[in-house]
């Protein structure tokens, strides 16, 4: 379902679409009573629903009749998508498999993050987790209902904005994007170190648990080190390590200048264009400060690059 529109003397153009896509009988694994000789089979046994909007807008702020006049136009593409599994046989019954490798759960998006609910450190500095009944434990969480949903890996919202300004041979183009509503494991688990040698050390050590520094989620290190067993394995998948991945980034900025004809004709060129381009500068905005990983790549940010160019046509 959608509308196309064209308003204010063609200054504003746009389309708006709404969709509600229901998939049924998708291929998925169904578990069987193992006395049949098979523990599962792949059949048409899943449903999925995608609901969303797609918006596309173009607006000319300043128009000009002449070749060298001032122009400014913008285009915006934005989309919202809600994805969820309407039915599936939940084949993953081991909580560690669900948090580590993932799995399909009815009611959640297809690509979801699952984690263990972290309950903080206890009075001796060992990590504790919430059991389904709300009590704290240092032991391994064995049941699948001790795992909680921590959001989807896929963005719910995305938008791209392009601005173009040109005046007397100069042009400036700025292209920016926004992704939001999704999550990632944005913080590595603060693994405690028993012996601290002369080497590069992680900075979370500065906030280690000590009998006097108890308001922290980093376990004790060095002389306060304790083996935490199941707790450490579970910490890798703690909910506090999952962070919102929303960000706005400028993809590129292009500044160009077309040399006037009277100059280009001197070297018998039809056209000379000078160009300065910046790709992937630092993120403009992130929902949460990411000291560890880039929210887009999950690891290092894409390095920024600067390009200077001259195009000529003879």
């Amino acid at each position, binding site marked *: 379902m959608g509308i196309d529109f064209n308003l204010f003397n063609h200054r504003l153009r746009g389309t708006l679409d709404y969709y509600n896509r229901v998939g049924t009988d998708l291929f998925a694994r169904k578990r069987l009573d*193992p006395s049949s000789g098979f523990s599962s089979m792949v059949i048409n046994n899943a449903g999925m629903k995608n609901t969303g909007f797609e918006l596309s807008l173009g607006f000319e702020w300043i128009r000009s009749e002449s070749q060298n006049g001032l122009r400014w136009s913008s285009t915006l593409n934005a989309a919202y998508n809600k994805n969820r599994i309407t039915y599936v046989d939940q084949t993953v*019954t081991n909580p560690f498999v669900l948090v580590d490798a993932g799995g399909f759960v009815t009611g959640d998006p297809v690509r979801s993050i699952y984690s263990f609910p972290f309950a903080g450190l206890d009075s001796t500095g060992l990590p504790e987790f919430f059991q389904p009944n709300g009590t704290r434990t240092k032991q391994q969480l*064995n049941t699948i209902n001790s795992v909680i949903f921590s959001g989807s890996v896929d963005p719910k919202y995305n938008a791209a904005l392009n601005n173009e300004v040109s005046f007397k041979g100069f042009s400036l183009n700025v292209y920016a994007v926004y992704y939001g509503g999704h999550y990632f494991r944005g913080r590595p688990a603060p693994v405690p170190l028993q012996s601290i040698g002369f080497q590069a050390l992680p900075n979370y050590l500065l906030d280690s648990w000590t009998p006097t520094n108890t308001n922290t989620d980093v376990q004790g290190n060095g002389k306060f080190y304790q083996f935490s067993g199941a707790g450490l394995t579970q910490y890798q998948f703690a909910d506090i390590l999952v962070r919102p991945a929303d960000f706005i980034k400028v993809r590129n900025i292009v500044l160009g200048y077309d040399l006037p004809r009277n100059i280009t004709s001197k070297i018998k060129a039809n056209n000379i264009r000078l160009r300065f381009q910046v790709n992937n500068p630092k993120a403009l905005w992130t929902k949460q400060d990411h000291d560890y990983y880039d929210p887009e790549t999950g690891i290092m940010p894409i390095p920024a690059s600067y390009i200077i160019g001259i195009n000529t046509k003879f």
Partner: protein
Amino acid sequence: MKKILFAFVVLISISTLSGCEKYTDIQPKGKNLLNSANDLDQLLNHLYAGGAFQNYDKASVVVNDIYGQIVNVPNTISGPNSLRKILLTYDEAGNRADFTLTDGVYDGLYLIINRVANVVLENAETASGDPNVLKELKAEAYVVRAYMHYLLVNYFAKAYDPATAATDGGIPYVTKIELEAINSKNTVKEVYEKMLADIESALALNALRAQPQSSMRVGKGFAYAVKARILLSMRDYNGVLEATNQALAFNSTLEDHRPLLSLPRAGRTPTRIGVSAPDNLFYAYNGKIWPILFHPTAEILNNVYEPGNIFKDSTNVYGPSPFTGLPGAVYWTSASYEQNSGGLNTSHLYLAKAEALIRTNKIPEGMDLINQIRIRRIAPYAPLVATTEAQAMAHLQRTSRIEYLYTWYNFIDIKRWNREGTYPTTIVRKVNNVSYTLQPGSPIWIFPFPISATQFNPTLTQNY
């Protein structure tokens, strides 16, 4: 011309787009389609190994043969609740079913029943090939199906008791591959009747070989041996005598430990090549080179092993263990003894026959069979004698406990004797001066059906 072409296209469209079948009719090329004797023969070359025959972590721990493979016993007992802790401490209140999400024995044995035995039995009727070969394959499949159900029913249900078998819950006896059907649980009596019927069907075909193609294929000896084990559980001792005599006609070679004694002490390593050992009737195992790293319990070492046992006292097979956290612990160090932990050996025949003789008041004859095993196990050897059935049964129980150590059969036999009640065993496990007791009638003797099965099969109520 155009018209003809058009009609042709329409015709093709109709014939190819005429709706989807539920299952594809296209026969893939180069795949085993299970429709010839040769295909089915290949299917029966199954590797009877792995989790289907799992005993080291459950059955052998319950019967107090071992603590497990590498298990720190005090830490497990003082640690968080786990299936291993429940079994080590015989904690009847512990909810074992909650810890049994899946069970390798349940999944694995039913996999063999369906994907090997039932496929062969269903397809042999219509398969192409030599009818005599197909008859042999069918006979093998009947025996395989009966034997796997025998292990299952002894693992998940009460031992057979003629008085209550008709009402005791058993296991599903699965004779047909139906993926979406519910295989209803049968009673213990029904399961035993169906096992016997399968063995009789196999024997009636009169197509099994005297010597099987390999130790993982079925010959006449194994068919009669399975029959003997079923009848032994059903307390039909005359039937056991008859079946064991028939089986022993095909293979009566016992493993002999005496040749080890002629080697220098340092070179005495028990060796058994699993697939080609002459005493195999049917070879099936959990781990190929097991019992390596198995830790016998203090009770086995101190109370059950007879003095002079060649393996224990005259070889280096046991070495001190740092793993269990218990003083004086030892473990099996040899990697060259490939034990038949899930199948049957000739010694099963000797001991079944001995029990049948003893129970039918032929005590000297029964003791003679026990001594035939002992003479190959113990040095210096002196024959055991018994004048009463009870004495003879005590000797039999002790000999078989070591003969079956690390296999399925101590669990099956002690459970059987406990259910009968004449020669019960109350198992006491002492760990750091704390005694844990397993009463003969304890529910621990019956393993819970896994959640992966009970959630789909409402007839699978637990049997304890």
